[in-house]
């Protein structure tokens, strides 16, 4: 089945009894049992809920993994994945990782003895140099947030396998429609499902998908024990959102390309970060591992004043955190997605005070351009 068909028909309807073409929302915390020796498939909804399971199977199927897990947020998915490790273990992490992930690693998990080295993951030699005897995994975002840096996943996987490490990829910006890291040999794919997967800015959720069943079992244990699961109504909303993933992504991406081209020639814009631009340093690598550049781009303005004028002046894009929704969202990484990162760390990573990030929505791109143009002209 091709991707578009998979989105609509990828998971068998649960409700064979009634023929419902949409999954029922099982708002049940517990499931009555018929036998004392052989419990049914479901017993307690934290451990398994039919609505959640439909979603988990759908996402696992799209990512080509053995098992998928839905969590209460992207951070809950990431925190649950970090619980796979033990004190003393070490991770090599891409340096401009999402601020929330950085915070989790630099506070909570640091306290628990999980170590992390942040590296420029566009440079495979830098990744290799950071690997220590106690390193257990590479943790990557490609393209990264917010600077859209590209990591060569095939090279990273080769390195990880040579050293016996797991490769974990946050695939939030791409979705499985554009990039399937598990097919490239990565072990775990993570998502803030809040973003493009759900796509409507109306649900907070996260996913972890394991390529192999055994690793999936370990994640299942943690999901159930930690219990940061996604509720059935939210699961249903995400199932609904997934159906339009391909058509949304295509439209998002086409508009993003148009806007990136406009920004590039805009005199107030110093620099545009978008892997769809031939001048992007990761352009070729990205083309080799993904089917498109996605719909998130960042750009630097000439002055802070312009930055403020744009953020506060836009009418069509919501000036807000998050991304990946049908509505365009303009955000200011220094105070939003990467506010959890200390200023010095931010600066070192090139997240300047004149940097803005745009998640291109489904509005007409000409309207979005006109809206930004008006702000920049003052």
């Amino acid at each position, binding site marked *: 089945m091709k991707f578009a068909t998979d989105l609509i028909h990828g998971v068998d309807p649960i409700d064979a009894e009634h023929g419902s073409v949409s999954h029922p929302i099982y*708002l049940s*915390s*517990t*499931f*009555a*049992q*018929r*036998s*004392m020796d052989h419990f049914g498939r479901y*017993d*307690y*909804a*934290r451990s398994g809920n039919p609505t959640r399971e439909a979603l988990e199977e759908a996402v696992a199927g799209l990512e080509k993994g053995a098992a998928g897990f839905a*969590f*209460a*947020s992207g*951070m*809950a998915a*990431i*925190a649950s994945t970090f619980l796979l490790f033990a*004190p003393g273990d070490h991770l090599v992490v891409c340096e401009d990782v999402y601020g*929330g992930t950085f*915070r*989790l690693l630099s*506070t*909570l998990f640091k*306290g*628990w*003895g999980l170590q992390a080295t942040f590296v420029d993951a566009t440079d495979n030699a830098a990744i290799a140099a950071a690997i220590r005897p106690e390193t257990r995994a590479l943790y990557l975002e490609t393209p990264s947030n917010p600077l859209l840096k590209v990591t060569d996943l095939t090279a990273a996987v080769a390195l990880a396998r040579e050293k016996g490490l797991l490769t974990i990829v946050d695939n939030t910006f791409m979705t499985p429609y554009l990039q399937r890291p598990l097919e490239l040999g990565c072990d775990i794919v993570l998502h803030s499902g809040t973003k493009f997967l*759900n796509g409507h*800015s*109306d*649900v*907070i959720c*996260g996913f972890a998908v394991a390529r192999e069943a055994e690793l999936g079992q370990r994640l299942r*244990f*943690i999901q*159930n*024990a*930690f*219990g*940061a*699961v996604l*509720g059935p*109504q*939210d699961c249903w*909303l995400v199932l609904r959102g997934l159906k339009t993933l391909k058509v949304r992504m295509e439209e998002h991406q086409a508009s993003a390309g148009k806007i990136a081209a406009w920004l590039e020639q805009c005199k107030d814009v110093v620099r545009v970060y978008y892997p769809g631009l031939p001048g992007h340093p990761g352009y070729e690598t990205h083309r080799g591992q993904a089917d498109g550049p996605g719909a998130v781009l960042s750009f630097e303005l000439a002055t802070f004043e312009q*930055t*403020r004028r744009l*953020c*506060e002046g836009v009418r069509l894009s*919501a*000036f*807000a*955190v*998050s991304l990946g*929704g049908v509505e365009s*969202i303009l955000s*200011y990484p220094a*105070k939003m997605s990467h506010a959890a990162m200390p200023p010095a760390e931010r600066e070192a990573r090139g997240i300047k005070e004149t940097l803005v990030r745009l998640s291109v929505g489904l509005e007409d791109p000409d309207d979005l351009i006109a809206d930004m143009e008006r702000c920049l002209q003052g």
Partner: protein
Amino acid sequence: MDIATTAAQIGLERETRTGAVTVPIYQTATFRHPGLGLSTGYDYSRSGNPTRQALEEGIAALEGGSRGFAYASGMAAITSLMFLFERGDHLIVTEDLYGGSYRLFEKLFRQFGLSFSYVDTSDVEKVKSEIRPDTRALFVESLTNPLLKAADVEKLAALCKENGMLCIVDNTFLTPYLLRCLDLGADITIYSGSKYLAGHNDTVCGVVAVKDAALAEKVYFHQNGAGAVLGPQDSWLTIRGMKTLTIRMDRQQENALVLARWLEGHPQVVKVHYPGLPGHPGHELMKSRGKGFGAMIAFEVTEPELVERLLMKTRVISFAESLGGVESLITYPKVQTHADIEPETLQRLGINDRLLRLSVGIEDKDDLIADLAQAFTKGEDA
């Protein structure tokens, strides 16, 4: 204000634009900012959502805490609280605690360097004797699962205070209606909100109330950081459930006492654990500390064969895990809720192959008794 009033009014007056008397379900991931560096107080729903906040304020009000928190499950709440501790910290824990908590402590947090001692927390002296220099907290079930042992939260909280330990109480079986742990000196109360608070067996959630504002800040940091939050629709359902907490609990307790007495008189029942019975070791303590005994009963039947008969033959009472809902449920702790605890421990605690746990609902008590009575009788049902 009486707790019934507080409970019925959770979320009221939050919606000033329309005057709606229930809090809207804010099914939004993100919030538009009025300007650079400005916020409406909400920016991303993991960090804060108005519907979830109404629930969080509700539990804080019911408990008399400075702040409340809602999580994706009771276990997510407990995990998030464990994030308050550091490698090398030691916790004292109720020995016959919920199997999921035990699994979390032993299989997940032990490898991260926390250590746990399990003691009979109905005995303050035993708790005291387990305190070590590295002990940071007591994690106690106010009424234990499944053996209904009552803890003296007031004395335990005082002991914790003397020793610089946090007193965390899992008050799931009693709710703030029956026992107000923060008033008794505890620092944090924690709930599987899936149970009595939501009360309808339709939501999985966890709820926490924290007494001290500075401690609450730390709890918030991990709620936001690890992100195991409750979604807005489930938050709304939990609020809806909490509005009827007191009347449900009243009826459930009433039914439970009737059933406990009936079970006590049944020839095929060896022992009934229900703190509302005068012979229960925690009866007097609970009378003096709280407002009731809850609606959980554990009972031992004469022979293991009876267990299957009861589980299979009850019609009104469902054979299912969980508890606290309007419908009555019967559970077999040894293989269901406490399957993760080592067999020797179960044996020592008295969680044997003849023990059943009953969560009494709000059905008519005579129907519940008739259901149990027919299930005890041999032979196929009509």
